[in-house]
């Protein structure tokens, strides 16, 4: 346990820029944008006149609808930049996880420590599945709190009540726990991809990105071509399988409900294999599905091979 903690710390130290600085910068951008917005209003407006009108207009919207909009916004629209950055960070982190130390030969130092290759691999996987998402989430929550505070002060300054306007109607804790749950569920759902990236990372002699992308592209293009030759139709291929997999993921995205109202949904509702409404039950429905079982089996094969290769990484 001690060793695992030490190895997790090592991953954090090495990737501080990606894991911590990235979300901090995004949070900073949000806050700066808010301040710029307020200053702009102040500049063109006599004593926040339009801001006051805006507040009055908002206060006339039905409280439960207001709460719903705030809730949906805080799990879809507002964490948007965090979500995108997190995906990139995790993707490239895993791609380098078993490659970088082979490239700079520091693997020889890591292997001189009494930590098994399995533990090393687990620490890297946990960093991608838990450490990075939790840090991103925590900084998002922190950013939200700062934004709520600043907004409350402004609302107070223009003579409105921030509690009745927005603080009291939304349920930030519900939104935050939902987002965290979705992040962690997504980590499990994406395990086949994570396993693949670690596998590539452990064998690629150079440019892991190329080795990660090229094989699936070749397989999918061949599939498409062969299907087309045989039947003149385009049926399911690897692209379709991967696309559908992530369309069904427990990652919260924003969608219309058909009546021009934005709603939060899980993944993208392309098929009806799963219910796409963003609820806790639907998240667990995915995690305890046959799909997930197959996904875990695929991930296990990738990760097992990655471990096998890691053991032999110092051969030559």
């Amino acid at each position, binding site marked *: 346990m*001690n*060793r695992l*903690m*030490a*190895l997790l*710390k*090592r991953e954090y*130290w*090495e990737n501080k820029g990606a894991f911590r600085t990235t979300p901090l910068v995004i949070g900073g951008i949000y806050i700066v944008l808010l301040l710029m917005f307020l200053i702009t209003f102040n500049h063109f407006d006599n004593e926040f006149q339009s801001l006051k009108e805006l507040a009055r207009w908002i206060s006339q919207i039905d409280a439960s609808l207001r709460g719903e909009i705030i809730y949906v916004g805080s799990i879809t629209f507002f964490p948007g930049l965090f979500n995108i950055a997190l995906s990139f960070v995790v993707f490239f982190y895993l791609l380098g996880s078993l490659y970088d*130390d082979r490239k*700079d*030969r*520091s*693997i*020889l*130092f*890591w*292997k*001189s*420590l*009494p*930590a*098994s*290759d399995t*533990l090393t691999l687990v620490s890297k996987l946990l960093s991608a599945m838990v450490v990075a998402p939790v840090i991103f989430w925590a900084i998002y929550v922190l950013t939200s709190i700062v934004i709520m505070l600043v907004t409350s002060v402004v609302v107070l300054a223009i003579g409105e009540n921030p509690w009745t306007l927005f603080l009291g109607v939304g349920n930030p804790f519900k939104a935050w726990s939902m987002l965290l749950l979705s992040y962690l569920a997504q980590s499990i759902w994406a395990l086949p991809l994570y396993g693949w990236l670690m596998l590539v990372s452990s064998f690629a002699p150079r440019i892991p990105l190329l080795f990660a992308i090229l094989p699936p592209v070749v397989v999918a293009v061949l599939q498409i071509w062969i299907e087309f030759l045989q039947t003149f139709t385009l049926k399911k291929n690897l692209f379709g399988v991967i696309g559908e997999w992530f369309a069904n993921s427990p990652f919260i995205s924003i969608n219309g409900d058909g009546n021009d109202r934005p709603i939060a949904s899980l993944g993208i509702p392309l098929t009806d294999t799963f219910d796409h409404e963003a609820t806790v039950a639907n998240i667990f429905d995915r995690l305890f599905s046959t799909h997930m079982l197959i996904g875990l089996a695929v991930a296990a094969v990738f990760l097992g091979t990655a471990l096998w290769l890691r053991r*032999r990484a*110092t*051969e*030559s």
Partner: protein
Amino acid sequence: MMNNVIEARGLTKRYKSTVAVDNIDLHIPSGRIVGLIGPNGAGKTSALKAILGLATYDGELSVLGKNPSKDRAALMEDVCFIADVAVLPRWIRVWQLIELTESIHPKFSREKCMEYLASTKITLDNRVKQLSKGMVVQLHLAIVMAIDVKLLVLDEPTLGLDILFRKQFYTNLLNDYFDEERTIIITTHQVEEIEHILSDLIFIQDGRIALDCSMENVQESYVELIVPPDNAVAARELKPLYERELFGRHIFLYENANRQQLKELGELHTPSVADLFVATMNGGAA
């Protein structure tokens, strides 16, 4: 048998087309400082990698009673090594490296490490990539010397270090670090710097062991004879292992020769490890 730190029988390492280590037997007891000497590509590093669990091999191999290819992690609690180039991660800060080693290695002593570091210019906040090559080696050595292990493997440990630090290092190794319980294996091209601390000598050539004996044995069995040119023919008749010429004088190296007989021809010396090495490599099996 269990007293031997390293016990190898028929140890073989094959790469695709070449045999790097060819069916060697090794028995290294504890409390020894072994110099593993060989030309480039002789199979030193391949043999060490097998011993350290960093590569697969054929044959029987037991290190501290463990199978290195299966139990690397457990083995590393009692074994430490420095590979032939400075391989510390470049991004890490010195304090992070120390904290990490402390929490992963049960036998690491922070105080000892700080003691060694105090004699260098390295500060705790430095990143490895800010350090010069020599300082990286100093840092690595400080960490390794602060770990209380039974077997220490040093593969070209002082590469890139100046002569002052090299001398200092080997003195520390002998005085502060080495004791009856420990075994040290060193490979280096600067044989003359380590020969006075070695207790055993292993020459390796083309994947085979060319010589395996203790330093006392070297002194007993091998002798160097320096003769003026007139006596060269007579000396040559006594079947030297090797002959070389220096400033017009002929120098012969003998194994198990009659010293009385040799004395009549010229001066006797104990050969240096370097000379013995050259003789063994050029003159065939010892």
